[in-house]
């Protein structure tokens, strides 16, 4: 990447105290996102992808302990004072969550919520903020935007609510948008529409985007780079096309293989990953994936593999027994 990264997550770890002991949700993660680029973060529930995004937003639970640096636009968010952080969030750093019903305030109208954001961050007067709100709702594909301003979130469908959440997120022209499972709560036909909308606005605004999902299918066509997370760590990271061409980490490959293929004959057995992710309060000494990995051998159970470069410096994986053959990955 030629231009300096807009966001650079440096050696970030997040620890959460739980009654069962310390839970390491994010474990020494390094990530970079450049302006106008889209990074996909893929992983299953509990892999730390959401905690990582909350670390970036500085919206971690109070008891959580964060170490490392989150450099955004030249400032370290971890050390930024609360007032400046609050100004930054919503202004240059925006987020869209999975469930639009919980991110929108149920007792305020759509208009109030949009106009509030615009007045707070852009210091627009009431009239200008209202005009801008209508434009934004129209831009995210909401029919009859002027009438929508007076409606409450419960009066809209799930897809429409997510559009409103996106409109609010985009309202102040953020430099970085974090979309955390933005379509998981939506139906398939609506999912495609929302992903298209995000991609279109991202391109148009030359905005950086982090798309967090559990679905490799979602990141395939819509990201520049992908980071795969497992048990709090990034286990493989690559430009999207390079990753799908050549997956090195057995977990990445297993994750892809576990997705039912639409062109496979009915009753084709799926390649399941045996077992389940490790308990994050009981860290494993070696590679976290080793208990489920069919290639695991001696060293895998003793030592944690670090991210190492593959064909290019951009493609990195953390594995002692990487898959090197290019063929048959998507079979």
């Amino acid at each position, binding site marked *: 990447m030629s231009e300096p990264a807009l966001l650079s997550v440096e050696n970030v770890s997040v620890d959460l105290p739980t009654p069962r002991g310390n839970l390491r949700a994010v474990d020494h993660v390094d990530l970079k996102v450049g302006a106008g680029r889209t990074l996909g973060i893929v992983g*299953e*529930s509990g892999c730390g992808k959401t905690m990582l995004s909350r670390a970036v937003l500085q919206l971690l639970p109070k008891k959580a302990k964060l170490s490392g640096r989150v450099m955004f636009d030249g400032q370290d968010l971890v050390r930024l004072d609360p007032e400046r952080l609050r100004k930054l969030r919503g202004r240059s750093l925006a987020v869209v969550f999975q469930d639009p019903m919980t991110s929108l305030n149920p007792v305020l109208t759509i208009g109030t919520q949009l106009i509030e954001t615009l007045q707070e961050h852009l210091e627009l007067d009431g009239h200008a903020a209202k005009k801008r709100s209508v434009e934004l709702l129209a831009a995210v594909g909401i029919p009859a935007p002027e009438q929508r301003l007076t409606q409450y979130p419960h009066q809209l*469908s*799930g*897809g*429409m609510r997510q559009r409103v959440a996106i409109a609010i997120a985009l309202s102040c022209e953020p430099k970085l948008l974090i979309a955390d499972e933005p379509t998981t709560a939506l*139906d*398939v*036909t*609506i*999912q*495609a*529409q929302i*992903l*298209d909308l995000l991609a279109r606005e991202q391109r148009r605004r030359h905005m950086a985007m982090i798309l967090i999902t*559990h*679905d*490799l*299918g*979602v990141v*395939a*066509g*819509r990201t520049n780079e992908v980071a795969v997370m497992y048990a709090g760590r990034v286990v493989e990271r690559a430009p*999207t*096309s390079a990753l*799908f061409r050549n997956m090195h980490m057995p977990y990445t490959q*297993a*994750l*892809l293989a*576990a*997705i*039912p*293929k*639409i*062109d*496979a*004959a*009915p*009753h*084709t*057995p*799926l*390649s*399941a*990953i*045996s077992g*389940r992710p490790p308990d994050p309060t009981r860290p494993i000494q070696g590679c976290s994936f080793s208990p489920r990995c069919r290639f695991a051998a001696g060293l895998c159970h003793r030592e944690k593999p670090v991210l190492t470069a593959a064909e290019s410096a951009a493609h990195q994986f953390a594995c002692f027994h990487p898959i090197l053959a290019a063929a048959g990955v*998507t079979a």
Partner: protein
Amino acid sequence: MMPGVQQSPAGAPLLKVENLVVEYAVGGRTIHAVSGVSLEVARGETLGLVGESGCGKSTLGRAVLQLRRAQSGRVLFDGEDLTAMHGDTLRKMRQRVQLIFQDPIASLNPRRRIGDIVAEPLVISGVKDPGKRKELVCEVLSAVGLDPELVIERLPHEFSGGQCQRICIARALVLNPEFIICDEPVSALDVSIRAQILNLLEDMKARFGLTLLFIAHDLAVVKAVSDRVAVMYLGRLCEVGPSEQVFAHPAHPYTALLIEAIPVPDPEVRPAESVAVGEPPSPMSPPSGCRFRTRCPRADQRCSDEVPELRELAPMQFAACHHPLIAAS
């Protein structure tokens, strides 16, 4: 809707749903959840039922079991009309038809031990000998891949989602049913666990000689396990036919839309720019005529005037559309 025509492969179907209508009254208005659906499931096959949220697929599953009584229509199970059954007769019949729900953790009582949860259907059906019950419970827990000795004394919160779904499957199997309705059994599970549970359902189907009605919103998941698929939209059946045929050559524009909307895990395949138009209308006031017409690129005047009937467009492939994507053979 064509009661004379048989949708399923030869032989009398194990389950036959005839013109089923289910409506809910909500605040003085009516939700038309299922509006005249006819379906057949042959013995030993898996029928996948797909559709988006609110299309009535879960209501249909519940109406089959009489957990939700239909306004009209019949549900014939092995030739007997469940809609006419009540009390003990219905309870006896339900031993042969079981249900697996979407949220495996919510469908287990958090205060009861796994052994008791799985034994409950046996208690209800009158298996009085505790030794016999334990034997059956252990057998079925081993079948779903859990170690009975380690499991029966524990509580649901000690298990992950995938393991809870195994327990739910064990509970559904313990009475040795013939028919299982799986309502979104894997949509709450992670990708890697989902494949395990789908494989398990396939194994159980073969081992226990089951017939399945598999309800899900994910077409790829449905295709992986189903011999035939039925597609629902806003309470009506759009299309039903052999899985391979329907996926290769969808006849109904809505089926085609659903297939196009599946994200393909291949960056070379560019996602189609917003194939879908609009959102499903409210089931409180469904459109006249064909209910999909408000989102359909092929809709014309006829689609708003006339309700399309299911008709056979290819062998065993039926669609309810005035302008199907494949010509009638």
